[in-house]
């Protein structure tokens, strides 16, 4: 029984790792080698020059698109934590006559998956003149009703004694939030932050719609363009894919604890 379990898990693990193996094999070989009629399991000689060729290819905006992706992901992560954290705290802890109205407006947006409204959002963002613009890539993704809702649920269960102690020390809502609540919620912020970063880095539909000039492409849009048009050679395409995954592999290895917590906290997020 135990052996069968490990056998099944090992076979599944091999299947799960095949795509990673293929990215490396195809990205570090020569094109002749990977298009040969007989399968080569590993390039006879690893071609590190492929990196130099990829980054110096003027047709592939590799550096530019990686920087764009990084800027968008970092801004969206911190922007969401800032805006949704504040709003979630206000909704959970500050008594106000119309707080419930605002809460219902937030909850109502949970019924509408963001991807379905890309046409309406594009209409508004293009009116603002934000097409192919960093603002258009970053700002519409900041106002996640779902993240705000999760923060509210979390702050509802935050120990009140800590806040009351801060109040006695003469801190208002603002001071209490920044000096007591946030420092004591680092794990939760990290969990939601890691999820926001991964989601932002991997998102495709919105950048495809809004980043129309090559200069504003994120790395996903760049990869997709070369994939669908097949205008660059296969080896470079796979190497570009490998490069595009690296930041997230780093996140996975370094922050897996928060990532797993984030998944279970947000399980509900698509």
């Amino acid at each position, binding site marked *: 029984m135990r052996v069968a379990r490990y056998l099944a898990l090992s076979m599944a693990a091999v299947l799960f790792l095949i795509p990673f193996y*293929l990215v490396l094999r195809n990205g570090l070989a020569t094109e002749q080698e990977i298009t040969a009629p007989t399968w080569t399991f590993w390039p006879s000689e690893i071609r590190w020059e492929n990196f130099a060729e990829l980054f110096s290819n003027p047709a592939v905006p590799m550096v530019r698109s990686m920087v764009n992706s990084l800027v968008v992901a970092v801004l969206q992560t911190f922007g969401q934590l800032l805006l949704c954290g504040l709003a979630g705290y206000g909704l959970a802890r500050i008594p106000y006559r119309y707080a419930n109205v605002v809460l219902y407006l937030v909850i109502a947006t949970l019924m509408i998956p963001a991807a379905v409204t890309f*046409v309406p959002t594009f209409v508004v963002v293009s009116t603002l003149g934000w097409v192919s613009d960093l603002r258009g890539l970053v700002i519409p993704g900041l106002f996640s009703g779902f993240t705000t809702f999760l923060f509210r649920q979390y702050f509802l269960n935050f120990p009140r004694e800590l806040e009351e102690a801060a109040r006695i020390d003469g801190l208002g809502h603002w001071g209490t939030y920044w000096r007591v609540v946030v420092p004591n919620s680092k794990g939760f912020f990290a969990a939601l932050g890691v999820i926001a970063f991964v989601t932002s880095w991997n998102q495709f539909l919105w950048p495809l719609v809004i980043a129309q000039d090559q200069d504003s492409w994120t790395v996903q849009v760049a990869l997709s363009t070369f994939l669908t048009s097949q205008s660059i050679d296969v080896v470079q395409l796979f190497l570009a894919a490998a490069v595009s995954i690296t930041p997230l592999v780093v996140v*996975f290895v370094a922050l897996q604890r928060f990532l797993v917590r984030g998944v279970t906290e947000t399980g509900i997020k698509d």
Partner: protein
Amino acid sequence: MRHGRAFWLFVGPFAIGLLVFVYVPIAWSLLLSFFDARNTVTPTEFVGLRNYVDMLTDAPFLRSLGTFSVFAAFIVPLTFVLALALALLVNQISFMKAFFRSVFFLPTACSYVVASLVWKLSIFNGVRFGLANTVLGWFGAEPIAWTVSTSPPWYWLVLVTLRLWLQLGFYMILFIAGLQRIPQHLYEAAWIDGASRGWQTLRYITLPQLRTTSVAVLLLLLIAAYQAFDEFYNVLGTDRGYPPFARPPLIYLYYTALGSGGQDFGHGSAGAVILTLLIAGVTLLQGRVITR
């Protein structure tokens, strides 16, 4: 009154953004859906319900709902069963538990674009050196044109395995979290009562205890399948455009509203409204599950 100021200090910036980037687009779209709006985002001519009638009688639009149904019929049950199986297996072992969990979760680091690249150009490449065709070749079978063949529609195998690989780990984590919430004494009581360790405890304890998680997972899978776009676009799309088959709703909407054949925001908005109404019921149910 001081509370009012503090409240808006915290909630105001988010509320303004929500208004501008969620509520205004929806309202504008509702408006546009009753107008003619080609290559412009300002309403030109009032057409009443005509955009809606056009969409609901448009064969490609209805076919896109059919495409979603076929996709969901494969991907939802397969992901559910396999994610649960992986969770049960990983949860039952102690040696190398973290290793296996990480391996199954690792694909979440990949985007759909990267996965599409691997599936289209390497695993299911239609030429002889594609991985799947290489394996077929070992058994003396002829290569298959995986992504372009429509009879049989092999592209479903490509699209379903791709999404399975990418999302299984995520749902496995959700199931593991659910399994760890089941009180151990329930199992001990069952064993004392003579229940077998395998099927009987699964059937009478594990599955009933996982009910909330299961409902949430099913709804999430359904909503995610409804919004499928990335892998369809990248696996089946070429520089000559998108093939006439296998167009799920968002692909259809993308080409209607933003395609190269001219931007039609009137019909695009009507389509977005219809799709939103169709999914709102499911998400409403999901909202009730998660807020409980």
